[in-house]
């Protein structure tokens, strides 16, 4: 469908419910913070975003920070639509960031400003080399732990976001927050810089724990601000509206 004047090209996530919430998908080249506490389904959602992209012929890259990619793939939901040939063909690539740190000689606990530039350049070079159109970094919080100060985190995310946007790459940065957190990010910086924030959470209602998803902001598009309940299934992430009659808020 041709775009209306002024409307940005979309990167359809392939998750039917999320694309509906986003009026067609993430505006292409946006950097989105996908944040939430543990066990809310962030990695599964991010992975599905990449698989759907790879299936559509968009080269997709998963940068794993906390878990090595072999272990990640071993624990992946047995998606009915996941074809391992996507990995063999290079459409879907997994890279472990700790290996990149090692190759770049970043062995210290804290990265310097020069090393931040080097890391941004290394990720951008990889994206260019692979022709990546969809990128996930899981998790950005773990990278931030190596940056320590708000200034360095701001500098890193701004430079990375700008570089990836210039490369027309749509990026999901997976963020981790504690279940009690009222902020959308651990360091309070990531949320301010990202073009979009998708919040995943566990919501308790009368003793039942529901997995929820809510788009908090998304530059370049209108979007629903309602809360949805999700399920991680072999057919992918499914979403239904949260029934308001039972809302605790």
């Amino acid at each position: 469908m041709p775009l209306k004047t002024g409307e940005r090209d979309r990167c359809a996530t392939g998750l039917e419910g999320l694309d509906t919430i986003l009026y067609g998908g993430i505006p292409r080249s946006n950097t989105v913070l996908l944040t939430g506490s543990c066990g809310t389904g962030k990695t599964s959602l991010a992975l599905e975003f990449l698989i759907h992209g790879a299936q559509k012929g968009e080269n997709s890259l998963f940068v794993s920070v906390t878990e090595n990619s072999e272990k990640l793939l071993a624990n992946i939901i047995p998606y009915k639509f996941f074809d391992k040939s996507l990995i063999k063909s290079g459409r879907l690539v997994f890279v472990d960031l700790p290996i990149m740190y090692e190759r770049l000689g970043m062995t210290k606990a804290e990265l310097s400003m020069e090393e931040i530039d080097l890391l941004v350049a290394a990720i951008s070079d990889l994206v260019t080399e692979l022709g990546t159109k969809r990128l996930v970094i899981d998790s950005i919080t773990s990278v931030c732990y190596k940056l320590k100060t708000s200034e360095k985190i701001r500098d890193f995310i701004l430079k990375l976001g700008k570089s990836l946007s210039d490369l027309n790459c749509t990026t999901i940065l997976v963020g981790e927050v504690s279940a009690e957190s009222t902020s959308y990010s651990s360091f309070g910086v990531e949320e301010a810089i990202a073009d979009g924030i998708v919040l995943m959470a566990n919501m308790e209602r009368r003793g039942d724990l529901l997995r929820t998803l809510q788009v908090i902001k998304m530059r370049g598009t209108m979007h629903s601000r309602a809360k949805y309940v999700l399920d991680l299934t072999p057919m992918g992430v499914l979403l239904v509206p949260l029934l308001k009659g039972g809302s605790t808020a």
Partner: protein
Amino acid sequence: MTLDQMGPQKIAAELSEMPPASAISLQMSVDNYLDVIRGVLDLFANKKGMDTIYVTATISSEAIKRVLQALDIDTSRIYFVDCISHIMMGASAAQQDDHTTLVESPTMLENLMLKVEYLIRRSQSKDKLVVIDSINSLAIHNNNWILSEFLHILVSGLRSREAFTIILSVEEHSTPEINNMVNLVCDHGIRAGKEG
């Protein structure tokens, strides 16, 4: 339509007259349950080659399977979303199989919708039937406001996917509020209970 103790043949015939993607309220009597089961699952859905998603909130899926076996009804195309076995009988995830999906509690109405959605997407069948057994049992665990919202979203979604929906209610346990709630989302009503 009011018919005294409508038999399974008559129930199936009534359902067969309904257009695709219809939502039907089927009110039955407690004594009429087996006739309804046979009419809906065997003579209607199985005969038409429909995949059936059976949401059970009244008795466990295991118990219904035993009933179906006793009635000699083919269950190969029937998929259960069981809302009560986990919370009331401690059924574990290990008891789930290709034909049975457990929802932790009948209060988790969103999860119930998600399981139905999953089974709809997984189904290869062109025609699909979703049976809710029963609205009265769900009403024990949920207030009318949330239940009404649930029915509206569920039935609208199923209609958009061209699935056939049957909402069972038990005449003896129904209230005017529940009847109104069901009538609001259904296109047609069938009374298979006692003549009133």
